[in-house]
């Protein structure tokens, strides 16, 4: 993984010192809360319903074991002993005191971490495939490119006060695990005409009040031109994007207003001016960063017969292996998903003790590296197959071996009204009760891949539009009302879910989802996925089951 050099380290330390000054000026009263707000919001510090929340960047979701230990220490010392992993591969601490934040940032800096641009109208953490460097279908490891984007976007002097926040995702594989279609810019790697690697560029995806899928902006962008092209897009957005209405200020609105062709003309015209500037990537720098992501030293191991044997002997292990393992391009290895979705638990939450223990397991079994997924789970990316059984037992004893990846209890939920100042309804308790109710149905009927996403307001942080089943918590006449969408997907077959009908109260929503699933089971053919059944038969049977013949 990437390791800071002196320059990287100087920057995060200076930024932490700068923030210490800003906090001191706030505490002394020199800065009013109004003046301080935009400053803290550029450094991941939100004022929530009960306390400050600090969002720490985990660039492209990659953590070293010592970094996870540092997060555990912070959770223990400054929070209530846990942290919350988000859908953008970051971590949040929910119970932070303002006066502690400078010390926290210093501790983060010592672990080569920071909170820079985890909030605010600027370029946010670039996300990528949690199976980077692992997936067999990968064209190239996207992490070096994500690191290049991280550096370019960090404290960018021109793009620190954009019309609105800006999110970039990058995928190295044709199978999209990064939800490219719902990002402001999506980059998918491919081979160009001469066999060189580059990117297909997508623009204007996003969820929120006006969900839109990204449109193709450029079919092939050579790698060396990545930053000049991004700069051209951002420059057009900074000048042309709307600032008069919060809900119309994302780039998706600009793209849809201008039309993709006109938008492309503007970008290409700008790009022509800067393509041959100092933004052109220097091969020496690309190689330097690439070298940081070279594969770990795998041991030559044959495909393990022991692994197959254990699965035959132990049904629980077999079930976990079927659900939570991902094939590794290195024979004899697997990538393991560590579920942060125990049945009845809070999606994405992790206790400090679990973090420390998992850091130890990462050192023992997976080259000291942990990854965060946009489904709010963690990954140990390089585990020998003959170690899987021991690892599974250790994870199980920590409560981290729920066999549910991409299954109905692997619910993505935002913090909602329990924490978030913008929420219109709770999402965590709905997730907890749903997973309790659905775990048993899944065990009996093997529901296969079925994703549920729950957002606590229209800001859609839990991406409910792209859940196979999406739930949006609204407020209606003083009470929580949950709107259900069906048919979303964020994979390469991306689609936006459609609203099935009127919303459900807090006491009805769990039963409503159960009704949808029970209805589906009667119509399901040959073990197909819920999404495929829905695409085959349409929403009518579900509407009828929920609302009767109206």
């Amino acid at each position, binding site marked *: 993984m990437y390791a800071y*050099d002196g*320059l*990287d380290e*100087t*920057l995060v330390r*200076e*930024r932490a*010192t*700068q923030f210490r*000054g*800003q906090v001191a*000026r706030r505490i002394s009263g*020199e800065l009013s809360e109004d*003046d301080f707000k*935009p*400053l803290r919001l550029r450094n991941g510090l939100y004022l929530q319903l009960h306390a400050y929340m600090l969002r720490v960047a985990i660039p492209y979701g990659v953590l070293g074991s010592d970094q996870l230990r540092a997060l555990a220490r912070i959770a223990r010392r400054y929070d209530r002993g846990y942290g919350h992993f988000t859908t953008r591969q970051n971590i949040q601490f929910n119970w932070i005191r303002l006066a502690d934040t400078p010390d926290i940032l210093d501790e983060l800096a010592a672990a080569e971490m920071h909170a820079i641009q985890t909030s605010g*109208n600027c370029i946010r953490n670039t996300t990528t495939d949690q199976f980077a460097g692992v997936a067999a279908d990968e064209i190239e490891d996207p992490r070096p490119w994500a690191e290049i984007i991280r*550096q*370019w976007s*960090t*404290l*960018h*002097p*021109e*793009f*620190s*006060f*954009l*019309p609105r926040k800006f999110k970039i995702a990058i995928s190295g594989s044709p199978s999209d695990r990064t939800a490219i279609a719902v990002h402001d810019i999506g980059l998918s790697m491919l081979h160009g005409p001469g066999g060189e690697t580059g990117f297909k560029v997508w623009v204007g995806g996003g969820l929120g009040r006006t969900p839109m899928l990204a449109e193709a902006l450029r079919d092939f962008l050579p790698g060396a031109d990545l*930053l000049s092209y991004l700069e051209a897009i951002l*420059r057009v957005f*900074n*000048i042309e994007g709307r*600032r008069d209405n919060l809900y119309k200020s994302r780039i998706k609105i600009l793209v849809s207003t201008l039309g993709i062709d006109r938008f492309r003309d503007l970008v290409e015209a700008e790009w022509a*001016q800067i393509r041959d*500037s*100092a*933004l052109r990537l*220097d091969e*020496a*720098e690309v190689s*330097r960063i690439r070298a940081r992501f070279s594969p770990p030293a795998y041991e030559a191991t044959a495909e393990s017969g022991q692994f197959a044997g254990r699965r035959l002997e132990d049904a629980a292990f077999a079930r976990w292996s079927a659900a939570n393992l991902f094939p590794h391009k290195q024979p004899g290895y697997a990538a393991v998903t560590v579920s942060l979705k125990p049945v009845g638990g809070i999606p994405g939450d992790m206790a400090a003790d679990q973090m420390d223990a998992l850091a130890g397991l990462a050192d023992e079994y997976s080259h000291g590296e942990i990854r965060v997924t946009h489904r709010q789970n963690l990954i140990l990316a390089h585990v020998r197959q003959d170690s899987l059984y021991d690892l599974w037992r250790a994870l199980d004893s920590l409560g981290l071996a729920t066999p549910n990846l991409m299954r109905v209890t692997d619910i993505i939920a935002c913090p909602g009204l329990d924490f978030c100042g913008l929420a219109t309804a709770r999402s965590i308790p709905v997730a907890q009760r749903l997973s309790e109710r659905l775990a048993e149905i899944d065990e009996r009927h093997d529901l296969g891949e079925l994703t549920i996403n729950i957002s606590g307001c229209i800001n859609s942080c839990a991406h409910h539009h792209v859940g196979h089943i999406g739930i949006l918590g609204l407020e209606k006449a003083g009470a929580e009302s949950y709107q259900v969408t069906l048919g979303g997907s964020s994979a390469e077959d991306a689609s936006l879910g459609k609203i099935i009908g009127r919303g459900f109260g807090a006491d009805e929503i769990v039963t409503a989802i159960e009704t949808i699933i029970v209805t589906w089971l009667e119509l399901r053919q040959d073990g197909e996925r819920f999404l495929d059944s829905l695409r085959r038969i349409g929403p009518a049977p579900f509407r009828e089951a929920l609302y009767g013949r109206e």
Partner: protein
Amino acid sequence: MTLIDYGNGSPAIAGDAWTHVADGAVLPPDRPATISLERWKAGRDGLTGRNLPLGIRLESHERIEEILPDLPRFALIALDFPNLNDGRHFTTARLLRERYGFRGQLRATGQVLRDQIDLMKRCGFDAFELPAGKDAASAIAAFGEISVAYQPAADAHPTAAQLRHRQPVQAMAS
């Protein structure tokens, strides 16, 4: 208002030789003056004969591209920041310096926050009008708070990548 001048590469509180003249008001006969873009477009004929430096002010939605051929006439361009959410003139400044070759004073006006100054400087601003009541010493201390630059901009700051791969300087043969 306090003016911080960075024209010679080190920030200092400076007296202001310039007057911002409101639309409709008379230009001072003996001092350099700035006028709005609006006024320039409406009545440049009355202005071009003056033998004193002229400056122009742009609001955040106004574009410098409207008057590119006129740029050599201006000794100062003032770009306004109405609030912290409006960052359009960060782009304007870079274009003026990097693309349109503007060499006069580039002044940030409006809500110029201490904590934006480093970024503005990188985009090519070399003068900053601090809003009333803001501590000038604190603003001066803000220059160079971040010494590392990851990206090329309008200033001469070498980027991190350039520093990393700079060819070692050859020792001169003596």
